[in-house]
């Protein structure tokens, strides 16, 4: 995979009410297996259909922390090359299974300075295509550089 350009969003340009672009993902069994392998979590729950069914699930299921990882990825992509997620919190409401399409969204609810850091506060959500809420009360604090902070030569352009 060749590197893509990641421009940089700066704190001053963000406004309350700004939205992260909704992102649709189709979760496959391959995704579960890849995440299990990348996190060294080889529990049969995440790939063995007969085992998962025998334990009350309709299929192998997504590790809840993978949902958090996807949301963190959304934030990092939106924030750009000098962003860093400082806080992320969520309550799990529904289990995700292979074949589920999910859509994540986010909206900026405020901006604050904390210990000299410029933080953008967001609420986040992820839902299945039928509207089932996967998580509730998801919030994040994303640190962004201020105009004076930006280090890189990537200060122009819109992050995706």
């Amino acid at each position, binding site marked *: 995979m060749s*590197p893509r350009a990641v421009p*940089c969003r700066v704190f001053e340009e963000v406004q309350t009410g700004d939205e992260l672009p909704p992102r649709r993902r189709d979760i496959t069994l391959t995704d579960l297996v890849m995440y299990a*392998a990348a996190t*060294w979590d080889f529990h049969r729950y995440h790939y063995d259909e007969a085992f998962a069914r025998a334990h009350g699930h309709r299929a192998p299921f997504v590790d809840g*922390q993978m949902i958090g990882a996807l949301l963190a990825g959304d934030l990092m992509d939106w924030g750009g090359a000098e962003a860093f997620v400082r806080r992320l*919190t969520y309550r799990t409401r529904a289990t995700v299974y292979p074949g589920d399409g999910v859509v994540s969204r986010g909206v900026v609810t405020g901006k604050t300075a904390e210990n000299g850091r410029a933080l953008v506060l967001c609420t986040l959500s992820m839902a299945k295509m039928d509207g089932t809420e996967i998580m509730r009360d998801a919030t994040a604090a994303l640190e962004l550089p201020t105009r004076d902070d930006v280090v890189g030569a990537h200060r122009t352009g819109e992050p995706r």
Partner: protein
Amino acid sequence: MGLVTDELRAWIGRAVSYTAPEELGRAAIRYFAIALHDDNPLYRDEAFARTTRHGGTIAPPTLVTETCQLVDRPPDENGYFGHSWDLPLPSRRFIRGENHYEFVQPVRPADVVTTTWTIVDIYERETRHGSMLFVVSEARYTNQRGELLAVNREVNIHQP
């Protein structure tokens, strides 16, 4: 009622630590990013990452909270070898209730991660599925210099 027995209550405050046998490494970081279809060059392009205020490759934020790779022991009969509490309950099964992540500083390829898990609280609460046991754990992640990297407070829900 009375799900929190004295035997269970004695687990509150118990802690266990795991230290990775080696550095996290650039391969583990890239592997995690691939599993999430995340092509952010901060995670894989050292030359690019050096031009940002991060100063070099960083790990995706939640990678450090996946701790199986820190635990150096053989898998159990279901393929699992990561952290778990051996609580005196009929089953080890649980569902994830909440995750609260705080990311104190980005995790780097050279970091040798230690995590310390502590049981913060165990309580009973009525849910739509009946009385459940809520186990609150906190994991603190540090590097080889003893610097705090992240904190993960999670609530897992056990059927009694």
